[in-house]
């Protein structure tokens, strides 16, 4: 048998001594494959690590998290254990909420703040959930909504058997995203918020208040598109991330 890979962290291009390690958290139902070629488009000094939560891909048989406390506690410990390089966090939608909670908990535990936190397609902690919750919808309603949101490829939606298999994890992820309630204290890490101009799930008005979530530098960028603008305009999004990370790396050098 081949050596089992790390169940949590998928690193397509391992770096010897990365100047920065970017942990990437996917949206509900997603896995680290979303980020599989990001390393090709980000600075060479950055190691890209996609996070794989239980309940999907080769962790399909594991029970997904449905509540925040154990999820944040476990992820914080795992990120903390990879302490050999400065780190940054990126997350989209559910992943943005996770990135922010992990950043907050790491700071509370006394670790040096993240060099950069990027929250994408994700309402600000002070903004209420806007849409009716999906996690508790009936199966037909949930599928109709997924179809409207265009986040699940039509090929998967059409496959009844596969949908039945992935639905429990999708619901658990949605429950996390839709029941998220963050504590009001800001983080010290710089925060950048990325928003889709036509995103009906987490629209610009729900994302602008992210500036209140940090005592550090705040950046805000809008991208043409709906909730999944990171796929529609991946090159533009990656260029923006690259810029932020280059700045973090340069600032980090200044501190040494």
């Amino acid at each position, binding site marked *: 048998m081949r050596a089992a890979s790390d169940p949590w962290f998928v690193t397509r291009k391992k770096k010897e001594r990365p100047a920065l390690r970017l942990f990437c958290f996917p949206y509900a139902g997603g896995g680290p494959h979303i980020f599989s070629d990001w390393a090709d488009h980000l600075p060479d000094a950055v190691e890209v690590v996609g996070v794989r939560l239980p309940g999907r*891909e*080769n962790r399909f048989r594991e029970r997904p998290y449905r509540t925040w406390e154990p999820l944040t506690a476990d992820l914080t410990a795992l990120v903390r254990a990879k302490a050999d390089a400065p780190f940054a966090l990126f997350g989209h939608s559910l992943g943005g909420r996770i990135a922010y909670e992990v950043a907050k908990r790491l700071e509370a535990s006394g670790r040096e703040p993240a060099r950069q936190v990027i929250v994408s397609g994700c309402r600000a902690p002070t903004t209420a959930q806007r849409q009716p919750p999906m996690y508790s919808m009936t199966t037909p309603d949930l599928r109709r909504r997924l179809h409207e949101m265009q986040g699940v490829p039509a*090929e998967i939606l059409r*496959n009844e058997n596969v949908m039945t*298999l*992935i639905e429990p994890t999708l619901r658990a992820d949605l429950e996390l995203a839709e029941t998220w309630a963050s504590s009001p204290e800001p983080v010290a890490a710089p925060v950048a918020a990325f928003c889709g101009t036509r995103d009906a799930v987490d629209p610009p008005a729900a994302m602008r208040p992210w500036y209140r979530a940090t005592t550090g530098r705040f950046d805000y960028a809008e991208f043409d598109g709906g909730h999944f603008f990171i796929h529609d305009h991946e090159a533009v999004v990656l260029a923006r991330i690259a810029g932020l990370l280059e700045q973090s790396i340069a600032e980090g050098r200044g501190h040494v």
Partner: protein
Amino acid sequence: MSANAATADIEADVISMWEEFFGKGSVSADDDFFELGGNSLTAVKFLSRVEEKYGMDALPPETLFETPALRDVVASIAQNAKKAA
């Protein structure tokens, strides 16, 4: 054709499909669909290729999700294709 020969043919076939899906040249029986980079979308694509070639129930989706090693996938196809024949 003997059962073993059929299984070997199925294995060679699945190996070539996975090599194509994942752009890799050295897939073996020990490899795991999701470790290679599979996700729900590649799973749906692979399942429909298997269905086209080996029939409707040759590989139940839960078999691929729950036992994603190539050897187990091949065993399922060989077993179910035999039942159908």
